[in-house]
């Protein structure tokens, strides 16, 4: 059975095509929460962090065409961090300017709190990694029975005892441990795949 070949360019290549709205929506889904979470970690309120998200993603949409991102110099997530880092800095500067409503010393303090780029990068990386795990969890969860997932979640994430969870879910202890590890294996595989895709730029993004 032969059909016409299809192409599977990466999300980052796909979003260059203005007509590929799916790709763009997917992109926003993946990276929007990362930028927003990063803003929140810097003490921004919902509306400010939302503004930041909008600014960063719009900047991506306009500059991705001329994206001079060099694979050898780092990952796309890293490139996006640089963009977000600068935007956040701009944002905080604007906020602290006299005449602006929230020009309180708190903002100034926050601005000075993260002067170090590498420290800030760690904050970003945490947010990005968290997003990856959540995306992976969404995907992986579909592949397992609810009870398998629950066995994993309650033991691995909530830290409950295997025997306790087994009794509650009506499974054997062995089944709970196997479920826990099987889900984890898939989760890690999924996260690694996305990381690899991000690194190689030519692979499929999630």
């Amino acid at each position, binding site marked *: 059975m032969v059909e016409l*070949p299809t192409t*599977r360019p990466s999300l980052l290549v796909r979003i260059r095509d203005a007509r590929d709205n799916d790709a763009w929506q997917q992109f926003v889904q993946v990276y929007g929460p990362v930028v927003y979470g990063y803003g929140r970690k810097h003490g921004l309120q919902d509306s400010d962090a939302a503004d930041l998200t909008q600014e960063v993603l719009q900047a991506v949409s306009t500059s991705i065409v001329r994206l001079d991102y060099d694979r050898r110099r780092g990952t796309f997530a890293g490139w996006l961090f640089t963009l977000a880092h600068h935007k956040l800095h701009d944002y905080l500067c604007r906020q602290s300017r006299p005449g602006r409503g929230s020009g309180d010393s708190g903002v100034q303090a926050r601005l000075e709190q993260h002067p170090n780029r590498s420290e800030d990068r760690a904050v970003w990386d945490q947010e990005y990694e968290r997003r990856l795990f959540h995306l992976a969890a969404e995907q992986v969860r579909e592949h397992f029975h609810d009870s398998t997932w629950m066995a994993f979640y309650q033991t691995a994430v909530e830290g409950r005892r295997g025997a306790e969870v087994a009794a509650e879910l009506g499974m054997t202890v062995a089944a709970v441990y196997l479920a826990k590890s099987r889900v984890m*294996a898939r989760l890690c595989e999924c996260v690694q795949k996305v990381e690899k895709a991000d690194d190689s730029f030519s692979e499929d993004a999630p």
Partner: protein
Amino acid sequence: MTMHLNCPEASHWKKLLEGALPECEEVSFHEHLETCSECQRTVEVAVAADALWVKAARHLREDPESGPEFERVLADLQAEPECAPGDDDMSLEFLSSPTRPESLGRLAHYDITEVVGRGGMGIVFKAHDESLQRTVAIKVMAPHLAQSPTARKRFLREARAAAAVRDEHIIDIHAVAEANGLPFLVMEYVAGESLQQRLDRTGPLTLQEILRIGIQTATGLAAAHARGLIHRDIKPANILLQNRVERVKITDFGLARAADDVCLTRPDAVSGTPEFMAPEQATGGIVDARSDLFSLGSVLYAMCTGQAPFDAPGHLAVMKRVCEESPRSMCAINPAVPAWLADVVAKLHAKKPNERFSSAKEVVDLLGRHRDRLQQPGITIEAARPARKHRWWTAAAVLLLMCGSLVVAEATGVTRLGSTVVRVFTSNGTLIVDVDDPQVKVTLEGDGGLIITGAGPQEVRLRPGTYKLMANKDGKVVREEWVSISRGDRRVVTVSRETGGAAPVVAPVSPTSFVGHTGAIRSMALSPDGKLALTAGVDQTVRLWDALNGRELHCFKGHTDEVNAVAFSSDGKWVASAGRDRCVRLWDVQTKELRGCWTGHTDDVLSVACGNDRVVSGSRDGTVRVWNPKDSDESLSCARHTGWVSGVALSADGRRILSGGYDGTVRVWDAKCGKELHRLEGHSQEVYSVAFSPDGRRAVSGGNDHAVVIWDVESGKLLHRCLGHANAVIQVAFSADGREVFSASSQYEVVDRALRNWDATTGKELQSWGGQAADRLSCATFAPDGKIALSSSSDMNVRRWKLTK
């Protein structure tokens, strides 16, 4: 803590987790794990390091941050782009009210009489210039584009630059102005049609017309380039053919660029169709005059063949082709296209700008010389050749050519007059290309290009690697093949007068055999004893035939849409079929009764395999599903491929399932529990067909990357990558003794020896069948004894091959 003296090793737990342990062992492992806390820990560590467990727990415990404003922004960002070109409903409200009854309205002092066309950039009107009393064409920038000040400025700037160029092959721009906030330009009015309209109307043009239009277009480009102006959107729609006088006029200079500035809320590297665009343009790289030359090559191609060179469904697919592939050979589409013209287009189509012609002027001169030659026969011209990347190659080739001929003549004692033997040496091994037809031109492509022609033995030094070998005769590709050269290897490729390889041996089939289908055949299969044949296709039927004489034995009816796949069970008693109606059906060969009909796939089913107690199907929905004839429900659903599943197979013992998909992977599944055991990665493109060896220990797969790959099922190792096919491989099979592999290719791009067989142990090609007579194959099947094959083209005919040794 409970300790056990005989705890299984970590590797065993790993196997258990992967579902690779025999069922009997599983039970005892379970019992052990129930109480052994040590092993409960081992099972955790087997899949991930402690740090990862901690990370997963920390990240998943924390809910994602969110808030009402964030939700709003996310929704906004994902909304449909505002700058979607909605030209079709572009209203004409920007026109002032008409002063004359036949007029649509007024723009400045122009009376608009007619809408001539609408495009991505705006609307073109036919208008009357009152002050100068002449007919003009007016292009008004589309209002949605004109909203952007940058785009507006760009439109005006580009139009003014274009107005400065005067050439008989470029549309004259009389004026550039703005009215009611909309920029517009006033141009000379050309009565006639665009080259696009012409091609749509007549198809490919004559050589004379191609040269005329090609030369004039290149002349216009040369004039513009001389003033530093780049067109950026050369395509048939922008080339106007003036009525009566044989004159070509290029329109829309530089305007494509203005559209690039517009979509500020969305990336927009590609405005307009990328089909005629240069790779550097499609990827947002630096565009210069040579980008126009690439597009000129595409226009020439379209005139020769009637179709765009990089045609594919969707802009992205087109862009990918533009950037990565060479177009289908023009001569294969239209044999009337001379080889030299194909060479010119190939050079214009070089992916790297510096490998194209250096200027439009050069193209004008070259095409001009060819036109003159055609008018005065008897003068020969050297054809254009693809640019060479490695000049040392050429030098080495010439040198070795001289020495080599002596060596070969002395060593063999035979001087082969009228034949070409090309010996290509790797650092330790040799590739010999033996051509016994002096009219055959052999091209070997690696990193650069190299053309080998003429008689006498030739030798070229090469690096180990994979090369594309092409043989052309009279402008037709008679042979195309991938040759892999490694150190210490000796390969011989023969291009004989016939087209190379064994001549097609097509068994005589009477006109009444295999007649019955009323639509194209999509899939076929031969029974294990080779006596029965199955076909199915577009007409929604599955037909059973006497494989020997082609007499129809039965027609299974029941599918409510096109049937994509059929298969015999391993004992030959059952027939499985599936297709676009998303149902998988099972029929009894003896009683002809329908024994099962399963629904569950959420998209077209593309492939089926049939065991004695279960049916496996693969679908566009990305899943592989297993059905049990004793059960009305689906018994198992394997996890998903990330693309369509185009091939499935079931091992003879029923323990393993193989699937191949558009995600380029082949996967091995446990047929009992649906666990993925291996993901076999070795194809660079879609996988179309998969098969098990009779003992189930090896697998073979074939796909769009032209490769046939042999795998070890238990370890997941790639054993052999068999290269030779010049087209997508659509069918693969093992012989009944497991010693040989058969493959069939589609013959889509070039004439290929469509059927081949390979030594399953060494991966070497044993034999091939096919040649000039074969049509494009759409499906094929091999008899287990390897003596007979059936194939069908994209029609209702069945071809029966005798695979003689």
